[in-house]
């Protein structure tokens, strides 16, 4: 194989691994939900249902088929975009999820745009000024934000900005979104809360990765060539810290799709995490499975993307 193809080969290999992981995860998701206690037909029909009725419903829903067969037909459905039908309200799952997913992605997107530049600048800045007052302030702030649970941040934010100051609406959805200002006001509190949660990790990891490369001989060499500190960090340290930083960012961001249930609940934001929790309480298996798969896909694509950045940023693999 010509050397110039190696990075593409590695990227393709990484994609292949991601795909295999996805199949394994789908297997786990399907059988884990299958193991949930309780019989769906029984729950749907209620306490008063006759055994014949339950058996009839089971037959009609295909629940008597062997599990592996149901898994394969479910997987085939997923591959063609058919997510199945909700047990609870007989609507196609894709229709239930559609709007919710877009809302979630919107929130995640706004948070990403807001958080990543700030977190990276703070992390790099702290690494450059290691040991300074700025570095210590950033470190203390990130540690305190990590240690405070998000429901606490969210509740405090509501208390301060919505109740006491009255600047922002307490609920972010259902507010009339007729202007940019209104939209910003609606998103402000969930975005602030989520930013606190995801940025702390990003700042710490970025700082650690940059400091790691600052300690290498080639960065000292840059200093001994007369480079300024900022040139030293931006030209020599940062490009080599790209891989670990991309991974830290991806890990933090993956939280934004699946892990935001508390924030969605407190601000009554109709996202996909809330949908999944509702589905669990009604034992709506197709919906649970689809949500779980969406979380996995978003997580996997972020991690795979980060790996691909790390591969392509490394000239030893590129050339």
């Amino acid at each position, binding site marked *: 194989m010509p050397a110039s193809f190696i990075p593409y080969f590695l990227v393709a290999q990484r994609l292949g691994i991601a795909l295999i992981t996805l199949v394994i995860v789908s297997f786990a998701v399907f059988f884990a939900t299958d193991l949930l206690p309780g019989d769906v037909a029984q729950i749907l029909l209620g306490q008063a249902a006759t055994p014949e009725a339950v058996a009839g419903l089971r037959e009609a829903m295909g629940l008597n088929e062997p599990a592996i067969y149901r898994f394969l037909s479910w997987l085939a459905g997923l591959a063609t975009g058919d997510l199945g039908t909700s047990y609870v309200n007989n609507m196609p799952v894709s229709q239930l999820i559609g709007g919710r997913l877009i809302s979630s992605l919107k929130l995640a997107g706004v948070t990403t745009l807001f958080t990543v530049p700030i977190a990276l600048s703070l992390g790099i800045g702290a690494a450059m000024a290691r040991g300074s007052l700025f570095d210590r302030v950033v470190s203390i702030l990130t540690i305190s934000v990590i240690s405070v649970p998000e429901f606490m941040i969210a509740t405090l934010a509501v208390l301060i900005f919505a109740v006491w100051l009255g600047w922002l609406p307490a609920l972010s959805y259902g507010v009339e979104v007729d202007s940019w200002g209104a939209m910003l006001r609606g998103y402000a509190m969930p975005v602030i809360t989520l930013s606190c949660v995801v940025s702390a990790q990003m700042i710490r990891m970025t700082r650690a990765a940059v400091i790691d490369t600052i300690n290498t001989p*080639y960065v000292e060499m840059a200093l*001994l060539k007369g480079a300024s500190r900022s040139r030293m960090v931006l030209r020599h340290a940062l490009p080599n810290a790209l891989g670990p930083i991309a991974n830290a960012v991806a890990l933090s961001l993956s939280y934004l799709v699946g892990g935001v249930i508390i924030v969605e609940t407190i601000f009554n934001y109709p996202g996909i995490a809330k949908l999944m929790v509702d589905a669990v309480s009604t034992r709506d298996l197709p919906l649970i499975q689809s949500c779980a798969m969406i979380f996995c896909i978003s997580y996997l694509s972020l991690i795979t993307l980060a790996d691909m950045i790390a591969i392509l940023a490394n000239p030893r693999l590129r050339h």
Partner: protein
Amino acid sequence: MTDIPLVSVRDLTIGATTDAGRRVQIIRGVSFDIAPGEIVALIGESGSGKTTIALSLMGHTRTGCEITGGHIRVGTSDITAMNEKARANLRGTAVSYVPQSAAAAFNPSQRLMQQVIEISAIHKLMSRSEAEKKAVGLFRALALPDPENIGNRYPHQVSGGQLQRLSAAMALIGDPQLVIFDEPTTALDVTTQIEVLRAFKSVMAKGGISGVYVSHDLAVVAQIADRLIVLKNGEIQEEGATQQILDAPAHPYTKELLAAFKPVTQVHAAFERDPKEQPVIEVDGLFAGYGLVMNGEPQIKILKNVSFKLERGRNLGVIGESGSGKSTLARAIAGIVPAYGGHILFDGKKQQLALADRSKEDLRIMQIVFQLADTALNPAHSIERILGRPLTFYHGMTGRAREARVIELLDMVRLPAALRHRLPGELSGGQKQRINLARALAAEPELILCDEITSALDSVVAAAILDLLKELQRELRLSYIFISHDLSTVQAICQDVLVMYKGEVVEALPAARMASDARHPYSRLLISSVPQLDTGWLSGLEQDPELLAAFSNR
């Protein structure tokens, strides 16, 4: 030479803060001058402060260190009085730096040319195309292959010797008055070292540039420096012209350094053996390698058909450059890397090739000592525990008996008994290597495989370890297989020498007559490449360039 020195250092003191927060002085009142065009060597062992002094000439101190007193003047600039920005302006233009390990000092993510001409970009000395033209000229002067295009490569695409010369080009691009060489050839093989030293010497002489050459190796320094400054514990011990110091060292420490360098050759066996006895080890047609095993052969083959015989009481040296397979040979004999072909006979008895198949007794008689004592000793275990383990494993010792034996072992390697309660991190490099040796002795072996055990040690400490090995050999009737890249070390302890090249034994020689008996072109090249304590050695050395090109590991 003019009367005004280019560099003048007066009463320099540098302090450091230890991890525990204690302040210590690492450089104590050092003063010296460097005349224009002169190359001064700072000689000393690790911890003597030679690199710290050299870096302070650029106004740079490593994390935790600080210039606490004295003056440094370079040209017309008073380095000690300057702020960081003014110092940065001097770096690369007035004073520049050639690092110890060029492999680590090049940014892996940038092309070589970009890094070589970075000084001209930082200080806005010239346009990019002018800088590139100048760099190509320097590449040519430093005898780099394909000077027009080598700059387009990345650091991992060129060899160590080439990188070291590229780092010299990087230092010279800004026309500095002073170049600091920080052990620039220590990481190189001897045959490569010669080319690099030659290249350095000619560009420095052509440009009339002053230099500071930091090294622990007197023979290398003798080739390049006009004057030597001998350092110990941050203080100057002796200072003088190179030839004068080599001929008539005045200070006892300098004498000790020189004595550690003088090879003492070993001709006779350490003890008389019974003529009826079998050779202690006999290796016949050994093949070994790494990687995935397919059809009984590993994918990366290292050793090819290695055979030798070692009589009791004699020592076998294995020499060769990096990548020659000498460490793999030790590992294959010990069974860590199982050989896939050949035989190993110990005392006439055939040994299993893989470690896992050998009996406890077979394991006991043959012990291995590794190069880096730091990584070979578990940092979380006390010395007593480290030495006690093989005692329990091989001899079933516990409690009092074991403690008594640990003390005995420590005494054997000339260490105080109280040391057994310490952790490896609390010992010096030489002490750690002695513990490493004591651990091998705990098994009461008949053969010890020494894999570069003195390479990471300072010359005086290494000489003491060699003396210890010889004493132990007489007392315990041991035999050694001694692997090293350093010919004089091998000569000091071995009677027979194997020269290895690319996994094969090219020649077996008697240690005392290596230079005269060598027939194979590679052994001759290797032996002639070892620097001698003679200022005229490098300029007088003639090597066939074709031979060099054929055998150097590039």
